[in-house]
């Protein structure tokens, strides 16, 4: 609780500073981290709380982006398009859930992974509506560049805040308890009277709602979307890595992980444009092998002890 409060206060401070003093780069970074917090927190609802290894994040993200993009091209107002995209994605998630949430383990993972491929191919082929592989240009929202950047920072941060509040509320609700039971032992959960099917679908739908809106906002933010960008499988994997970094199944974990991941990504991106996804891969392997419980496993004290034992006695402070 204290930890959550501290992180919340820090996030609000960062947000305020960015809004008042941030240049274009800082604003972009802030919006990106807000998007990452949203995606990681949303994935954590199905992947962390319920323990279902979902790779459908890219599917929800891309569907949200395209739904809102097509709506905006047809003159529907911005807020309606974003909210509508979220609802349509949630509806899609319910249908997908009915198909694959009765599967467990690898089978569920594959089913969810394939969802993004199906949507990408449909988007590619359905040229008359989606523009196909050429992509879709979105109408510009009004205002100058800086006003726009600040608008998107505010909206994305608001969405991230909403996702975190939803996750926090979930941990204290009946549904949250049901999901934790499912993660620990689904058969036992069923035996004690939890409607596991409905709980899982609710979790997937809630998770997809935030991802879908994030995709919709992303589309307006970048003005241009194409299928290989918004249905990219890395969008499914990055939120998982962030959550692993911060700690799976906690409210604060995905937030911490998203910030840490963005930091690492910026470091890697700047130093190696050509090999960045290779470095990302190495990072993932190292993370799974050495820090499976996240950064929380790193204790400053234990590192210090280790350094002390290595140093010669006279050099010890």
């Amino acid at each position, binding site marked *: 609780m204290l930890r959550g409060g501290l992180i919340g206060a820090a996030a609000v401070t960062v947000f305020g500073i960015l809004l008042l003093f941030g240049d274009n780069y800082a604003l972009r970074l802030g919006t990106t981290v807000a998007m990452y917090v949203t995606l990681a927190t949303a994935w954590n609802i199905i*992947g962390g709380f319920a*323990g279902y*290894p979902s*790779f459908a994040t890219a599917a929800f993200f891309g569907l949200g982006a395209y739904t809102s993009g097509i709506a905006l091209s047809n003159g529907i107002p911005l807020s309606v398009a974003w909210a509508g995209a979220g609802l349509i994605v949630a509806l899609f998630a319910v249908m997908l859930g*009915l*198909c*694959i949430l*009765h*599967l*467990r*383990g*690898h*089978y569920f*993972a*594959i*089913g969810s992974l*394939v*969802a993004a*491929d*199906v949507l990408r*191919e*449909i988007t*590619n*082929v359905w040229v008359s509506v989606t523009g196909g592989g050429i992509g879709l240009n979105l109408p510009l929202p009004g205002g100058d560049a800086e006003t726009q950047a600040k608008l998107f920072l505010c909206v994305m941060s608001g969405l991230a805040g909403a996702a975190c509040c939803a996750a926090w509320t979930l941990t204290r609700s009946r549904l949250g308890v049901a999901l934790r039971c499912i993660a620990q032992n689904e058969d036992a959960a069923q035996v004690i009277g939890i409607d596991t099917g409905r709980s899982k679908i609710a979790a997937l739908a809630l998770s997809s709602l935030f991802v879908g809106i994030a995709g919709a906002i992303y589309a307006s933010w970048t003005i241009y979307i194409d299928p290989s960008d918004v249905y990219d*499988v890395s969008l499914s*994997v990055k939120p*998982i*890595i962030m959550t*692993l970094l911060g700690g799976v199944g906690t409210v604060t974990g995905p937030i911490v992980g998203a910030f840490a991941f963005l930091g690492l990504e910026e470091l890697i991106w700047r130093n190696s444009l*050509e*090999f*960045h*996804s*290779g470095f*990302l*891969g*190495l*990072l*993932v*392997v190292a*993370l*799974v*092998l050495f820090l*499976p419980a996240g950064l929380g496993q790193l204790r400053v004290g234990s590192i210090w002890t280790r350094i002390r034992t290595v140093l010669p006695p006279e050099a010890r402070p």
Partner: protein
Amino acid sequence: MLWLQVLVNGLALGGLYACIAAGFSLVWGVLNIINILHGSLIVLGGYLAFFAHLQLGISPFLFAPIAGMLLFLPGFAIQRVIISPVMARPVLMTLVLTFGLTLFLDNLMLVAFTADYRKINLQPPLGVLEFGDVVLPLDRLYATGIGLVSVGALWLVLRSTQLGRAIVAVRMDRDAASLMGINVRLTHAIAFGLGTAMAGVAGALLAAIFPISSLSSSGYLGKAFVICVLGGLGSVPGVVLGGFALGVIESYGALAVGPENALTMSFLLLIALLALRPTGLLGRKGFT
């Protein structure tokens, strides 16, 4: 006679498809992990065959078994060093781990070989077989034949060697196999090595008939998934059935809804199968 030609096209891919999925299915069945790296290993096998043909003039059909042997040891080592420590962890961990390895290998190949599509030009071309109106390209026939022979060899190894029986025993019951004196860790590593070897064979055969690129690994992985789910997990006959089924379904699908929709159709088929019959057409209870 169009339908007959389409059937022949589909069947001519079946053996190759079986070969693509055999190693993937073996690893999934025995180690109970999904090897997302499989698609990248297929592409790597394809590049090896491409350069063997370009530099040394070795025919990809002859090179296929060599590609398999070349990839066995890296697979063995990857399992021993990287995958073995996380074997007992939840599904998510092994998935994310092999995904990380794929990102790394794909990026490495992208830097080394660029994203250009490359195809082996066989000199002289092999030509075609003609039966009345029906045409069968010989290179496809060879690829599918060698693919089937490799899958058959894998089946024989699993059936009638001591090593194969050990692998099957570990697949059935890890603890009981361990009590019978089988070295489970070693068996896992060998099974994984066999899986990557099959990926190498499949890649070399693919490079003989299709253009390869470092960007196409996820497509092959998707096919391997579909075939495994179609035929049922972890059985060699299931893979052969699934391979031929996918080949025929794809080629009729391309005829019915257009080739640009063929991939979507096979993925939709996968989701439908997962929803209705996740244990595959041969209907055996799989691992969760």
